């Protein structure tokens, strides 16, 4: 399955969704594991974005 590259915001939302899904009391262990793996995937995407961005500041010539 190919997943299209999500924006940071979308990844963050998916991560929050996965975390919220795990809060259900009737969740099965399998579902919890799946949600966790999914959440970690989005977590990594977000974390990579934050770690890999090297801020550049430039002023254009007039």
């Amino acid at each position: 399955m190919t997943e299209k590259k999500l924006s940071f915001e979308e990844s963050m939302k998916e991560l929050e969704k996965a975390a919220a899904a795990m809060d259900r009391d009737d969740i099965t262990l399998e579902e919890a594991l799946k949600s966790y793996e999914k959440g970690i995937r989005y977590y990594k995407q977000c974390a990579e974005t934050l770690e890999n961005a090297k801020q550049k500041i430039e002023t254009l010539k007039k």
Partner: protein
Amino acid sequence: MAPKPVTVSQLNSYIGRVLQTDPLLGSVSVKGEISNLKYHSSGHVYFSMKDERSSLRCFLSAYNLEHVRFELEEGMEITAAGNISVYEQGGYYSLYVKDIDVTGRGDLAAAFEKLKSRLAAEGLFDTKHKKEIPFFPRRIMVITAATGAAVKDILKIITSKNDCVDITVWPVAVQGAKAAGEISAAIRGTNEKYPDTDIIITGRGGGSIEDLWAFNEEAVARAIYDSGIPVISAVGHEIDVTIADFVADARAETPTAAADMAVPDTALLREDLDELRAGMLDRLIRTAETKEEKLQALSLDVFARNICTMIDYHAALISNIRDSSRSRLLNLIAGYENSITAAKSHLDDMDPRSIMKRGYSAVTGKNGRLIGSTAEIHADDELGLTMSDGSADVIVTSVRRDRR
């Protein structure tokens, strides 16, 4: 002697040449009040300028109108720059206007209101056109003066909050006649040359209404409206409101506020992310533990224990039922025994032998039947006598029947 007569055309043409060559009239600046303002369908504008005593015809071409920074209105106090030229067919002169400045402060407010209502009517301020400011921008274009408080504030705030976003500064004049042109060109240029820009911030620090005027010009408003990239306007102080603010996708009260709203705090984001991850792990472990407890509750030992308890319970139940049935049976038997004893004693009472013991005898015929009446016997009949201790054969000698 009167000079040689000339034609009207010749005279008007001559006057035209004279006025054209006059060094003063070739470049003149005139103060006055606008009257008889007419927008022609060709795009040219015709009006008069007047003071208390006099009036001057004015012509503003569609081309020059584009460079006028104000909406014109009847009664507005202006300074118009241009040259005097003769309209030969009509035989009158006009001021060919190149540029207009508004002089009265109240007139600036009027120009502002006029443009505002025109653009509003056109729908440029409609919220349906407003684009959302992206939550996590990768690149921000800052369109403002290269030096000055605004650019410093914006860079300071963004870099203190966010260490990911790229910032490009597109330096422009933010006041004066050229400002609106440069600002709108920069906004359009960002869309064309830097399409990966996520947010445009355009603005400047505080100043007088004249200083901020570029942000009240139609060219800037149009460029902001046409921008595919979301624009945050950040002009002056809290109290300054410009046309750019109305048309922008978001209005910041100051450049500092614009910088603050444009970017998320990356340190907080990292914290949030780590918290989310830790929370998920925690939750996963807790879920696993809960499931383990449930599994333990299902183990064979517990199952066996549960079964034994069930068996004991049912055994007790059965034993109770058995005990109670036995006692009920015994009661029944005792009851029957009592009735049998009673019946036996009753039967004993009825035994003829016990009567015989008291001295009575039974009389029987030849066939052994009991005879209970003298009507059945006659003299010489042979009868039997049964007593308690034996029997005898007798012959009837006589019969006496009692009278009834």
